[in-house]
């Protein structure tokens, strides 16, 4: 036995005596609670209690962190966030950055999830063919998923900087260099691109697993009937893959709505507010601005929570159907 496993054995034996004691006192049923308790306690402290505190912060104002020092302001934080002269013009809103964040996030979700799932589906379909070295290709597409978002952002920042390799490629064909991350539209484009680059391998993997779960006989029956390929895909593959596509769609939406890490490091939310998303607004308002407006940040968190609540309910429904 190595010292490490010995240590592990000793540590894991520590609860033996108290547990035996509890076992003698409690009926079998209660013992279940003992095992569940630590996990439940952490959830209570860092998930459930915080939601209540979120509500408290959202209803109080000022810049104090301590709840007892915060004056009650009613729905002021919410109205401050939500009041706009014209809802399609973020600049007309009292909290214009928040609304820029909402519109940017919406735009991001539509482009990122739409493009990423299409690409993942195509890649999964290609990988599901007779491919030489399928394991290698599958791993290659998946590898960036494991990388830290900060690493991903720096890899691309290095490529996209003004004297970077992409501009060098442009220069070699005589094109003028572009400040990729200082132009609003390009910065948004690269935010979408980089987040797809980093995450599509995950969705490809799930869809490929779904494709491989379709029994071979189904495809063989169709090919016996000489079904045209596109019809085969539309009438057989796609419907059978639907449950997986739904799961992947909801997962993708949940993650895209909360996008922060990669884009924050890549663009800092800029130029201006061009790539500022909802979570960055929450972070900025609560922690990065000179004046920390916890109430506003909490109110924005709760609004985001409602969106996630809806999406997660759809996901759980899908999971239950899948299981």
């Amino acid at each position, binding site marked *: 036995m190595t010292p490490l496993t010995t240590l592990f054995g000793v540590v894991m034996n520590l609860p033996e005596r108290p547990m035996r004691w509890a*076992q003698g006192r409690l009926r079998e049923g209660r*013992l279940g609670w003992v095992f569940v308790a630590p996990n*439940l306690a952490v959830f209570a402290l860092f998930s459930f209690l915080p939601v209540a505190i979120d509500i408290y912060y959202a209803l109080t104002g000022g810049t104090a962190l301590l709840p007892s020092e915060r004056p009650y302001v009613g729905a002021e934080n919410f109205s401050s966030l939500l009041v706009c002269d014209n809802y399609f013009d973020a600049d007309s809103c009292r909290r214009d950055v928040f609304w820029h964040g909402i519109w940017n996030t919406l735009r991001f979700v539509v482009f990122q999830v739409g493009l990423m799932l299409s690409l993942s589906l195509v890649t999964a379909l290609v990988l599901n063919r007779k491919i030489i070295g399928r394991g290698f290709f599958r791993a290659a597409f*998946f590898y960036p*998923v494991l990388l830290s978002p900060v690493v991903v952002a720096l890899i691309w920042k290095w490529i996209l900087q003004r004297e970077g390799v992409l501009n060098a490629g442009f220069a070699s064909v005589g094109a003028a260099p572009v400040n990729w991350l200082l132009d609003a539209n390009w910065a948004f484009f690269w935010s979408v691109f980089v987040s797809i680059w980093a995450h599509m391998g995950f969705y490809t993997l799930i869809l490929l697993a779904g494709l491989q779960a379709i029994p071979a006989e189904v495809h063989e029956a169709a090919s016996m009937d000489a079904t045209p390929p596109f019809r085969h895909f539309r009438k057989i593959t796609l419907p059978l893959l639907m449950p997986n596509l739904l799961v992947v769609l909801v997962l993708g939406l949940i993650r895209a709505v909360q996008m922060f890490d990669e884009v924050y490091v890549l663009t800092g939310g800029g130029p201006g507010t061009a790539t500022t998303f909802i979570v960055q607004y929450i972070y900025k308002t609560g922690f990065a601005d000179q004046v920390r407006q916890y109430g506003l940040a909490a109110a924005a968190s709760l609004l985001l929570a409602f969106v996630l609540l809806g999406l997660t309910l759809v996901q759980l429904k899908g999971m239950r159907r899948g299981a």
Partner: protein
Amino acid sequence: MAPSVLTAQRGRYAWDWTDWAAHLYLLAGVVLMFGPIAWLGLSSLKSETGLNLFPPTFLPYEQATVDAGERGKLRLFKVTEGDHQGETLAELRRIGRQAQLIDPAHPETIIRRPGAAREPVMQVRAAVENYSGLFSQFNFLRYFWNSGFITVVATLLTLLVNSMAAFGLSKYRFQGREPVFLLMLATLMIPPTIVLVPNYLIATELGLTNSLWGVIWPAVATPTGVFLLRQYMLTLPDELIEAARMDNASEWRIYWRIILPLSAPALAVLAIFSVMWRWNEFLWPMVVLSRSEVYTLPLALNSFQGELTTQWNYLLAMTVVTLVPITVIFAILQKHITQGIASAGVK
């Protein structure tokens, strides 16, 4: 059978154009996935002068030097026009537009040439000092240790706490079991992004700000882990437990001597997830850790990219070192990771 990109093919051996298209697509994908990472790796080996070259070179280049005794290291130039054209000379100094050069073989004669009449001699050299500098000039080991400590401790605690809960939920009948399970799943709806402010308050009250434990504790209970492990433990036969009880084993012993070892495959999947989550985590650590001596690697990288825009050589090397551990783990466990994630369907 009609060939198509859109359908699975079985039993064909002759390649048609769709096979070529499929493989070309995948190869292009591999280039797009690995190209940027390879470029990062190559760039991290370039010296500061090599990084400033535009257009950038593929391999790490820097100006060649020659050791000229008491005159120290001199940079080498090639004379491009006029006297001594084509000769490789070492530069002593530059005065105005005049360059004073010497021939390394005859260092006693000083040759004066206009600065414009020479060009630097470049050579390939890996600038490993980018990496060694991380240790000598930055608090790099500290960041590495912080990240490693959080990842290892949080993963061990996650495995312990989640497997205990999963054991309780799958192997005991008690009132409130179903509600508790649903409650735990419900935390899926409370991701860290929406409880930043309250968790910051709680961490402050518990004295966890600027402490690595402030990153560890909130992450220890995971709905994904409980779900994954519970589903797995449900498949383990209850007879095992009954038999152990007959032998008068305590419930704790049953848990960690029988159920835990049998749950190894599910634990491995959760361990992989946990390592990935904790090593890469960014937003919550950024909120709870503000002093640089408790920074994790992602936090250090983020703050350096703001400060050291001119020191890309160190930034790139640090980025490489950050991605190495995850890459090594992936290279070794590639098959298990992809299969585990495909079966769990979570991230």
